[in-house]
């Protein structure tokens, strides 16, 4: 038992002394989270910057302006001139430019046709206040009133969606890229031979490796999560213990897969290639960065069989939405199957030199 724990402890130290593994294990996922977050995060972050030109010289202008300023998602900027406002619009710094009308004049709005989604949403909001102004100024009573009911308990933002995906991806990457490389280079460098030349029970050493990578993963995931929360305002909805259990389970499965790869590869370089062949497609296809529904219909059944998919789903359900694990158990059992298969290959084929 001491052999197992010491193997894990020393491995843990070695991990954090190796700059490249710290980069791939922590810095790289954080960079990914930052880049993906910046590139796609706007999908559901509804802030529209609207430039306003002119004074509130008419009642209509007042209703529109006050109305817009009360919409939380709209940020109003008072423009000095129309030319300046249009320049900002063309540069993408405005979604919409509104010219407040003098009495009897129409309300002029300028938008960028190159950004149809944002500008049409902003125009809809604008139209609502134009209609309201007309209604109010004509003195009519509203016939229908809108009451909207949200079905999610909390707002689901992109970063909340992204973070669990990044965490699951990190677990897979540790095993497929890190473990396979490390174990193969231990074998090639005859370090494993040194171990087998002692009376230690070899399975204790291998279990030590599993514990090492599981504990390394917990530290990595904690750091990534804290950065996600601190820098990007990500929130975890679910049970942290349940999330940790999923992380440890995922780490054990992918570490086993990594060891299995190391039994097939002769050199660390070829282990790296094999690991990449598994890791990179999963990284983009398994729903880590964006919903799997965005993937082409034809390959979706295939994607469901990627071992990373069930882990992403379960960690996202617990982490982002605070759900219970029940509906995700079949997927997790499938993932466990990968782990068992990998362990069988690893123990059957394992060579110490």
């Amino acid at each position, binding site marked *: 038992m001491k052999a197992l724990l010491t193997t894990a402890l*020393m491995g843990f130290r*070695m991990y954090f002394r190796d700059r490249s593994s710290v980069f791939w294990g922590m810095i790289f996922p954080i960079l990914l989270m930052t880049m993906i977050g910046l590139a796609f995060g706007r999908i559901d972050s509804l802030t529209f910057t609207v430039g306003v030109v002119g004074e509130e010289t008419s009642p209509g202008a007042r209703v529109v302006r006050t109305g817009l300023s009360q919409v939380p998602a709209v940020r109003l900027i008072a423009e000095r001139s129309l030319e300046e406002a249009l320049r900002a619009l063309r540069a993408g710094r405005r979604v919409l430019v509104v010219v407040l009308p003098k009495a009897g004049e129409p309300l002029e709005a300028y938008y960028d046709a190159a950004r149809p989604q944002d500008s049409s949403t902003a125009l809809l909001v604008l139209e609502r206040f134009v209609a309201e102004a007309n209604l109010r100024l004509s003195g009519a009573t509203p016939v229908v009133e809108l009451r909207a009911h949200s079905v999610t308990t909390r707002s689901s933002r992109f970063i909340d969606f992204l973070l669990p995906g990044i965490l699951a991806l990190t677990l897979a990457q540790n095993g497929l890229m890190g473990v396979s490389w490390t174990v193969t280079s231990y074998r090639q460098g*005859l*370090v494993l031979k*040194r171990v087998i*030349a002692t*009376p230690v029970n070899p399975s204790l050493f291998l279990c030590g490796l599993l514990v090492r990578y599981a504990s390394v993963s917990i530290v990595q995931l904690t750091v990534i999560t804290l950065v996600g929360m601190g820098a990007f305002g990500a929130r975890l909805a679910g049970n942290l213990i349940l999330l940790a259990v999923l992380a440890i389970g995922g780490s054990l499965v992918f570490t086993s897969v990594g060891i299995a790869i190391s039994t097939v590869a002769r050199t660390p370089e070829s282990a790296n290639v094999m690991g990449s062949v598994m890791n990179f497609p999963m990284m983009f296809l398994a729903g880590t960065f964006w919903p799997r529904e965005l993937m082409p219909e034809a390959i979706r059944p295939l994607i469901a069989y990627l071992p990373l998919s069930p882990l992403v789903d379960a960690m996202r359900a617990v982490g982002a939405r605070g759900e219970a694990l029940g509906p995700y158990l079949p997927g997790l059992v499938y993932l466990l199957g990968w782990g068992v298969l990998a362990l069988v290959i690893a123990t059957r084929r394992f060579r110490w030199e």
Partner: protein
Amino acid sequence: MSIAVSVSDLTKRYGSLVAVDRISFEVRTGEIFGILGPNGAGKTTTLEIMEGLRRPDGGHVAIDGVDVLASPHEVRARIGVQLQEAGFFERLTPDETLYLFSTYHRQSLPRDVLLERMGLTEKRDALVETLSGGQRQRLSIALALLNDPRIVFLDEPTTGLDPQARRAMWDVVEGIRRESRTVILTTHYMEEAQRLCDRVAIMDHGRIVALDTPRALIRAHAGGTTLAFVMEDGRLDADRLPGVSRVDGSDGETVLHTTDPQRTLHALLDLSRDGQVRYRSLRVDEPTLEDVFLHLTGRRLRE
């Protein structure tokens, strides 16, 4: 004298290559036993079978009375093993390395004592990746001694070391023997075998071609003493000198094989005193294990 290791009819094949060919020998308790031979002679294979790291295709090995094939685990607990070219966990310190491996053994010597003995005290907290070749080799020996073994196997402990580090390693090996441990080492340096080993087995093509003390091997298989000289001027009939059995020569140097080195030398010096010849150089060569190997195999040890 008790027997530490006994090997009988050991055979190992790799495909059609017979790496070890039915060899038998015994190692006595407390001696330094050397296996000398060129690369590919089967030294490492023999050693690794004795260590329980490889299975032989035939034969038996008993270490400290324990059958290696039947209980390799038990044997590993009793021996210390220094593996050729084996790596370390590069990002651990020597102290951490010893600590980690101590948990793999049933018992272990204090780490500070081992580090001190191997001259690694200053490096105890430096990462292994920063150690020199000699320091790594000494750490490897420290690992071999960690479990306080009665029998220590050293596979080419000085290969790749500079002359100074090699001499330091010789002192270390002699120190191990002084603690009344049995040492079995392989080497392809004949001066190393000659200097360190109580007995030497000379191995070639998987077979032991000779086994004895270095002196006895030289006496039995190498020619006698030779006298070599280069003449400045004068002339002499070398084969008429007393005791001379054969005359060789190359590059202006004359080499006399003699059955009576003392008389031959006197005769050479008399000639010089009488002014008949003047020598530019004159030296007496004792035969070495290199000559033994040359005699037994017709080849030089390092080619």
